[in-house]
């Protein structure tokens, strides 16, 4: 016997073997349909007794196995059911012959046989035969089962008769020696009676015992098959005794095994095969165990006589009990072990031993004794069955695998399954079964704790037996390739690369990727789930590690393209769904970070960017093609990128771009790559290691897009992030420059609104005048601006920084003793007006550098624009142009002072002008001739100016309510006032400079240079004093001539321009003579006399009123006289500024009287 039945289990010992075979040509499908119906009759209750007969059907049974039928009767083919197709009566004889020939094969053992004929109708079919059944067709055979049952019953009758026949053999009868095939030759001629060799009594007795023992064992088998378990046990026990005494090991083993089988059947009525349907659980078997065996027991009770007469053991009856004869679960295993050890003594009994092992393992599996089971299996592995065919090997390994599985040794099971798989494609096999191999390999996956879903590996580090898993994956790849399914190979190889990356050596990485590329060249890998024929699904393997993505960051649009929401008056932009102003609940929504909405917005139609930080773990350059974004929510046109990452790169930034095509909320779910010909969709939710600050962003409706260009060159300075662009220029202080800004609509929407504002960035420099000015009217007339069109806006840049120089640096210019303090208007004018030709170069070098210090001014021009759908939604864009001006100093006013002019309405403004440039420079001012200054030269410049009526300037401004609101503090008011005054003065002065060599020119302003004192001097006093000599106004240099001796009328008129009434005042006129040598002679009482008092009284003068005082004086001698009009009484004067009482001095030249009348 060479073909083991690995499916056998202990309870098979109680079955009778029936072979079902086709005769002639029977379609396989039809045959198995009938076979299934036959097999369904697996258990038959025998009529008239409560016994059950179990049938084991086989459609193939090697005849040489049948030869072992005496050894274990369940191996004996006792029934034959032949299935045949017979269409015509003509074929019938042939069919019948064949049936008989088939019977011959198992002839020696058959109890009975049946032939099922399909398709034959008519005469022959009419005849009633017990051994043949006719059916018109395979579809029309309703009583097949009943036929089989009848057949089984007939077998039972034979079985029962055989059992009774054997069991009741008289002791006198010669008991034949039962043999297994390989023993036959050993026992040839060993006949006890006839052989002369058997003279020795011992031998004879020995032989007899052997015969008895074997027969007893055989009876046990029959009892078991006939459903008499207890009897079987008794017989087995007796057989064991007998056989043990004669050391008939093979049969002793069989007897022991019989004992075990019976006990197993008793203990485990559910069966040990572990398969449902293998054995129908008979009607309440366990409960009826006793009842069920009772009939058999009764028969044994009848038997004792026979037994005793057999002379084997008179006491067997005492052993007839119930469970007493039955082995305990532990004993079963012990006896199995013993049996197997006996079998092991015979090389030819390998199959028996192997089967016994398998049976024992199944029992142990039920007993949950995995360790012992594994020992049995271990033993089974080593049983040498001689040359096995490859198919048998596969079967053997598969069964071992299955058995290991049922005892819970999953790894071992996987190991053998894998061996079986390898066996399928062994080189010795002419047609390797790659499909079978692949299928078996797949079945080993759980044993190696390997799932083919990459998601199971994404959690943390890989924890598995990588070496064996990798091997298995390689085998799967190879098997699937040989199967001719490259798609499958690609999937497995991708999986290998993705999940085992950490365990691959550099060389292996190269090899794996190379073969992957080879495969994908034929069959590119994708994201679809591959479903295998057996229903197993292979999920897609996205390459999340090629490259490894560390972070995903959605980028805001460039500043100039960011949309801004127009703030609604009602605050609707604050999207608060809650009716509460503040809710603590909202604060604690710890939603998924990934779902968090990002603050900024994207704009439909504009290119949006997402930055990934990626890392290439491979030891070679990684080419990633077609890398793009996976999004949801909004129609999004991803613009894929191809990149090449250097070997084992560090973190590498990659920017993926795309254009949203609709508005709404967009979520970036992941990214798409194509590496080594495998395209992957890597979803972020499956990559917990990826850092992201949120992936949802709002896409607002489309907005126009402006491109800005300027007439001036772009700034070389690194522009700040907020600026779209910037221009930079160099100007001298006071210079201005025209800048033309061209805006082109490069978007797809009409430009509908445009606003321009400017902001001067905080600067330490004090800026005088308006830095940037423009006129937008012209530009706005072009709106709406269609895409592709452009408009220009002229902007004037004017820089006027402080022109004042530091006083301390130029003290050497301050040597002329000019004092502008107080009311020292008495200084002789000549002295002041004498030309100052002295040219002074600026002092020290540090001082010079101080003046050469370049200052800078920065401002931002801010264009707010909108249009299209975005405008409707209230969005706009901002474009910022930075303007950077390096201001080089041009001129400085190092010192300012005033001198009274001859007229009280005028005064001289003295400016020390310093040329801080390195060029020759001319300075001009209102009605003054140009002043030429060499580089670093300082000159004084005197400008005669009319005094200013500041009151008139300021009054309306202060009364303006808006201004009052803004400048509430007195200090601010004061500043404002000063500023206005400065401007007024400046516009009057209109000082310009020009550098002829550079063709540059500009203004210079004295704003900021002027101090309060100077301002006071420049201010036109609100009290206007007019002195008239003889009715002629007398002012400044005008010399009134008059004759000696004639009274001169002197008229002093006060006009009050101030807002309050002034006065009364008392004025005294003091005449004096100036000798031009610094000596003033006031002792003129003899020379000049007053007609009337020399003190004038002016009454209170109301605003806008005027008051006149007239007096007269008489010059007695010729000469130049000056009249100094002083306030006598200071009481009222003190309340008003001294400058208000600035009366012109009067110069009268008394001449000889033309009428020489008496001296």
């Amino acid at each position, binding site marked *: 016997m060479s073909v083991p039945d690995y499916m056998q289990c202990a309870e098979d010992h109680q079955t009778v073997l029936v072979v079902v075979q086709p005769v002639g040509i029977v379609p396989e499908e039809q045959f198995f349909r009938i076979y299934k119906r036959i097999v369904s009759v697996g258990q038959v209750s025998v009529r008239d007794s409560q016994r059950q007969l179990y049938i084991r059907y086989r459609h193939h049974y090697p005849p040489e196995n049948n030869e072992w039928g005496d050894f274990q009767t369940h191996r004996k083919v006792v029934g034959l059911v032949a299935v045949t197709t017979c269409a015509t009566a003509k074929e019938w004889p042939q069919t019948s012959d064949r049936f008989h020939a088939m019977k011959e094969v198992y002839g020696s053992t058959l109890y009975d046989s049946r032939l099922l004929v399909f398709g034959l109708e008519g005469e022959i079919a009419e005849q009633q035969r017990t051994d043949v059944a006719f059916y018109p067709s395979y579809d029309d055979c309703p009583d097949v089962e009943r036929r089989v049952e009848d057949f089984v019953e007939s077998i039972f009758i034979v079985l029962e008769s055989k059992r009774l026949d054997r069991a009741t053999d008289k002791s006198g009868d010669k008991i034949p020696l039962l043999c297994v095939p390989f023993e036959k030759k050993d026992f040839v001629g060993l006949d006890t009676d006839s052989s002369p060799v058997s003279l020795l009594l011992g031998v004879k007795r020995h032989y007899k015992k052997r015969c008895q023992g074997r027969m007893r064992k055989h009876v046990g088998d029959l009892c078991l098959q006939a459903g008499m378990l207890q009897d079987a046990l008794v017989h087995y026990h007796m057989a064991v005794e007998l056989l043990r005494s004669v050391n008939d090991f093979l049969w002793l083993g069989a007897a022991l095994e019989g004992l075990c089988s019976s006990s197993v059947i008793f203990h485990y009525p559910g069966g040990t095969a572990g398969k449902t349907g293998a054995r129908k659980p008979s009607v309440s078997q366990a409960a009826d165990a006793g009842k069920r065996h009772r009939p058999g027991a009764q028969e044994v009770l009848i038997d004792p006589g026979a037994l005793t007469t057999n002379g084997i053991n008179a006491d067997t009856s005492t052993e007839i009990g119930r469970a007493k004869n039955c082995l305990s679960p532990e004993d079963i295993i012990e006896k199995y072990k013993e049996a197997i050890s006996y079998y092991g003594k015979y090389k030819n009994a390998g199959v028996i031993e192997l089967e016994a092992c398998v049976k024992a393992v199944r029992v142990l599996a039920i007993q949950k004794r*995995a*360790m012992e089971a*594994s020992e049995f299996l*271990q033993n089974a592995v*080593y049983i040498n069955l001689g040359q096995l065919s490859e198919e048998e090997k596969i079967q053997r390994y598969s069964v071992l695998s299955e058995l*290991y599985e049922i005892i*819970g*040794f*999953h*790894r*071992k099971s996987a*190991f053998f399954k894998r061996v079986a798989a390898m066996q399928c494609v062994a080189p010795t096999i002419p047609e390797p079964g790659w499909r079978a191999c692949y299928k078996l390999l797949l079945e080993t996956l759980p044993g*190696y*704790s390997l799932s083919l879903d990459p998601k199971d590996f994404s959690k943390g*580090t890989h*924890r*598995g*037996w*990588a*070496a*064996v898993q990798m*091997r298995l994956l390689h085998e799967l790849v190879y098997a699937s390739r040989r199967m001719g399914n490259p798609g499958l190979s690609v999937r497995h190889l991708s999986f290998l690369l993705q999940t085992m990356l950490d365990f691959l050596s550099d060389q292996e990485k190269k090899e794996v990727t190379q073969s992957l590329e080879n495969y994908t060249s034929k069959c590119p890998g994708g994201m679809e789930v591959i479903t295998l024929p057996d229903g197993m699904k292979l999920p897609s393997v996205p390459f999340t590690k090629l490259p490894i993505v560390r972070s995903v960051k959605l980028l805001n649009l460039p500043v100039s393209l960011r949309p801004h929401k127009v703030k609604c008056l009602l605050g609707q932009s604050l999207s608060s769904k809650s009716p509460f102003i503040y809710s603590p609940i909202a604060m604690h929504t710890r939603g998924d970070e990934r779902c968090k909405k990002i603050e900024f917005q994207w704009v439909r139609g504009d290119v949006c960017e997402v930055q990934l930080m990626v890392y290439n773990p491979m030891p070679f350059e990684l080419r990633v093609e077609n890398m793009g974004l996976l999004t949801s929510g909004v129609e999004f046109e991803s613009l894929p990128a191809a990149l090449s990452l250097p070997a084992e790169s560090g973190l590498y930034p990659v920017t993926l771009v795309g254009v949203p095509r609709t508005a709404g909320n967009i979520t970036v779910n992941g990214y798409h790559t194509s590496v080594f010909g495998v395209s992957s969709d890597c979803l972020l939710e499956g990559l917990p290691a990826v850092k992201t600050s949120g992936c949802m962003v709002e896409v607002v409706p489309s907005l126009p897009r402006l491109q800005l260009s300027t007439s001036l060159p772009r700034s070389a300075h690194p522009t700040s992030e907020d600026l779209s662009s910037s221009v930079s220029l160099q100007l001298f202080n006071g210079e201005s420059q025209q800048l033309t800004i061209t805006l082109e609509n490069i978007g797809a929407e009409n430009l509908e609104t445009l606003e321009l504002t400017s902001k001067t960035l905080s600067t330490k420099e004090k800026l005088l005048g308006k830095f940037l000015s423009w006129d937008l009217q012209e530009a706005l007339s072009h709106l709406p601006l269609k895409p592709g069109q452009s408009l220009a806006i002229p902007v004037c840049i004017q820089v006027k920084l402080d022109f004042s120089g530091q006083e301390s640096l130029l003290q050497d210019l301050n040597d002329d003793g000019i004092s502008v303090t107080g009311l020292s208007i008495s200084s002789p004018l000549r002295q002041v007006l004498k030309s100052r030709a002295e040219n002074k170069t600026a002092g020290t070098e540090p001082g010079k550098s101080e003046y050469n210090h370049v200052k800078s001014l920065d401002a931002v021009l801010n264009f707010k624009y909108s249009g299209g759908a975005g405008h409707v939604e209230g969005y706009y864009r901002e474009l910022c142009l930075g303007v950077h001006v390096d201001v080089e100093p041009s001129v400085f006013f190092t010192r300012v002072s005033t001198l009274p002019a001859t007229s009280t309405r005028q005064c001289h403004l003295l400016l020390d002008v310093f040329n801080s440039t390195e060029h020759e420079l001319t300075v001009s001012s209102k009605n003054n001739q140009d002043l030429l200054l060499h580089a670093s030269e300082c000159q004084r410049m005197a400008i005669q100016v009319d005094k200013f009526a500041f009151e008139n300037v300021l009054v309306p401004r202060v009364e303006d309510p808006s201004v009052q609101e803004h400048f509430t503090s007195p200090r601010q008011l004061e500043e404002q006032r000063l500023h206005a005054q400065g401007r007024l003065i400046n516009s009057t002065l209109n000082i310009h400079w020009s550098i002829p060599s550079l063709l540059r020119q500009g203004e210079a302003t004295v704003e900021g240079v002027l101090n309060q004192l100077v301002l006071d001097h420049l201010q036109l006093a609100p009290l206007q004093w007019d002195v008239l000599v003889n009715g002629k106004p007398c002012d400044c240099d005008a010399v009134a001539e008059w004759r000696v001796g004639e009274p001169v009328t002197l008229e002093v008129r006060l006009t009050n321009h101030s807002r309050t009434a002034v006065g009364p005042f008392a004025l005294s006129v003091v005449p004096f003579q100036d000798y031009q040598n610094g000596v003033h002679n006031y002792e003129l009482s003899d020379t000049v006399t007053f007609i009337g008092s020399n003190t004038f009284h002016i009454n209170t003068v109301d605003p806008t009123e005027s008051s006149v005082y007239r007096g007269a004086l008489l010059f007695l001698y010729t000469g130049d006289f000056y009249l100094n009009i002083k306030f006598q009484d200071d009481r009222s004067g003190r309340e008003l500024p001294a400058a208000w009482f600035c009366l012109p001095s009067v110069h009268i030249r008394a001449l000889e009287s033309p009428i020489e009348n008496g001296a």
Partner: protein
Amino acid sequence: MTCLCFLCVSRDYDELSSIMAVCIAVIAKENYPLYIRSVPTQNELKFHYTVHTSLDVVEEKISSVGKALADQRELYLGLLYPTEDYKVYGYVTNSKVKFVIVVDSSNTSLRDNEIRSMFRKLHNSFTDVMCNPFYIPGDPIQSKAFDSMVSAMMVQAC
């Protein structure tokens, strides 16, 4: 094996110990290898399979031993299973880290005590590895000290 013999010519041939491990493995609680080393002359993958399948027995033994002697557990699991060429022995720490030693079956003069002492050495050495502040528990063992100790066991008195 023959080629290994000359490596230890200097060793004392009369030494009682005659065990030579052909493969030594340390397996994490979660049943993946922390360390596996086999004699270089042999197919390494074969030992991976041997050790991997031996885990079935280890698990079985742990669970059955656990039932019997919950508190006083013997760390040494004894012979896990014999194969044609090798004998596989197991040892499990209380932290469920497993050690597996594979020895050549031709070593007939095996003594249980020697195997035990090998495991004890292995355990001590492993403890030192765990105490290395630079070793991250769960990572493959790359300690040179451990390596050399294992090497000594594989070469020891062949």
